[in-house]
């Protein structure tokens, strides 16, 4: 399965992927309207230090402990892709307890959110498309 990969040697820590993620998942077509004056809550997050930066989002694990720990069946995996049915999620935080990468977090509306590789947004992952240094790529490995 194609996944999003980050090369930390190239990541500038510019946070554009976070903005593109927030835009892609906003459901709003106008990027300015989607983001202006809003505190973004992206599913991809930059970790940064003085010398290293990298973006982190759901790794779509082969043996997903989040899916196996989910108390409601809201998280599921199909053909490698892990998605969340927010109508079933009660916000119990078990997935936050389980995810080894810290990649599941509460949405602004309550239920959890996670990277679904933009499959619900009708696009290739926007974090990748907008990365100015090609540090994030979407490919099979």
């Amino acid at each position, binding site marked *: 399965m194609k996944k999003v*990969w980050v*090369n930390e040697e190239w990541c500038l820590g510019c946070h554009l992927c976070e903005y593109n993620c927030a835009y892609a998942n906003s459901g709003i077509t106008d990027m300015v309207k989607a983001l202006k004056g809003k505190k973004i809550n992206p599913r991809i997050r930059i970790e940064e230090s003085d010398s290293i930066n990298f973006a*982190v989002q759901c790794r779509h694990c082969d043996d997903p402990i989040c899916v*196996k720990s989910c108390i409601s069946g809201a998280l599921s995996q199909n053909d490698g892709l892990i998605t969340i049915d927010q109508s*079933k999620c009660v916000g119990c*935080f078990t997935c936050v307890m*389980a*995810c080894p990468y810290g990649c599941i977090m509460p949405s602004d509306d309550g239920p959890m959110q996670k990277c679904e590789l933009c499959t619900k947004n009708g696009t290739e992952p926007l974090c990748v498309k907008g990365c100015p240094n090609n540090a994030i790529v979407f490919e099979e490995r």
Partner: protein
Amino acid sequence: MNYVIIGNSTAAVGCIEGIRKVDTKGNITVISDEPHHTYGRPLISYMLLGKTDEEHMKYRPDDFYEKNNVKTILGKKAVKIDKESKSVEIDDGSVVEYDKLLVATGSRPFVPPMAGLDSVEKVFNFMTLDDAHSLEKAIDSDCKVLVIGAGLIGLKCVEGIVDKVKSVQVVDLANRILPSILDEKGSALVQSFLEKEKGIEFTLNDSVAEFKNNTATLKSGKTINFDVLVVAVGVRPNTELISEIGGDVQRGIVVTSKSETSLEDIYAAGDCTVSHNIATDEDQIIAILPNAYLQGEAAGVNMAGGDKSFDNPVPMNAIGFFDYHIITAGAYVGDTYVAGDGQNYKCLFTSDGVLKGFIVIGDVAKAGIYTALVRNKTPLSEVDFELIKDNPQLMAMAKSYRDEKLGGTL
């Protein structure tokens, strides 16, 4: 191949999904005394809270049994296993034969002997969907509720009902709340939150000496009047099907990391079993949902002729009250690193060069990174502990780990 599963909750679903990874054809039969489609058992408090409903509580989609070619016998109880004829007797007198059997019978509420309990008209447990429905029908806005037990089940029940009733009092023999997952500081913090936010009254270090109709007299002499009583003192594993045919039971059913019992072709998984806690190196019942799934899944794969071990069980819990969240895992032994303020609390426990366990309250973001260190027994020599103790982050991991997991240079 005939697979039979006694139980229809998390371990059973894990088993079905495990079997189907290996064997897409064999017959699977599920027997359960609960008459419902499989549901997320811990969701019952969220249902009372209005965060979900019966439809959304389904643990797997409506077509789950059909898609996995599973025959269900629901609302009927498996009463006996005959290991000679390899069959299960059901309470309607019918018999189901198996080649491989999973016992995923869970646990039942433990109700200690309490004088005068018979005189109480409205008494409830809080384990099943039916329990939750019964409790919901019995309460209203004028109702005073007494909950015996300040553990995980008791307090999630409290969260579910406190806004629907006049008052909630909680009594526990222990000297603090949630003693199975919190240390003293954590217990005090959460107790104070529940008292201040919701006016819940706790009476600790105390227990009921006698009930007389709607009054409980405690050992201390204190009396509490109530309309509805919830007993959430603890649970007992349902092990009888195995113990009565000579299988090894030590409090819970003893299983290997492949979920095998001591009896041929009989497996067990979930809250009815004993697991080997890798954080303490001790055998104990780890009655948590992820454990049930992982044991069930391993059982299913092995029943179908595959090879799967679940060899790193640790207790781990995520629990919250009114958006105040708690995540804990592992064992609370060794050196501690403590941080926090009046709202947030963190305690990390290190010993033998690994993170043995942790408690985080309030800010629980990315706590799974800590959980992974506990579950994987990651040597702290490979981790920048100074960095990770403040905030869980992958920056603190070895570059080789990041490169493998996140990408790196091709």
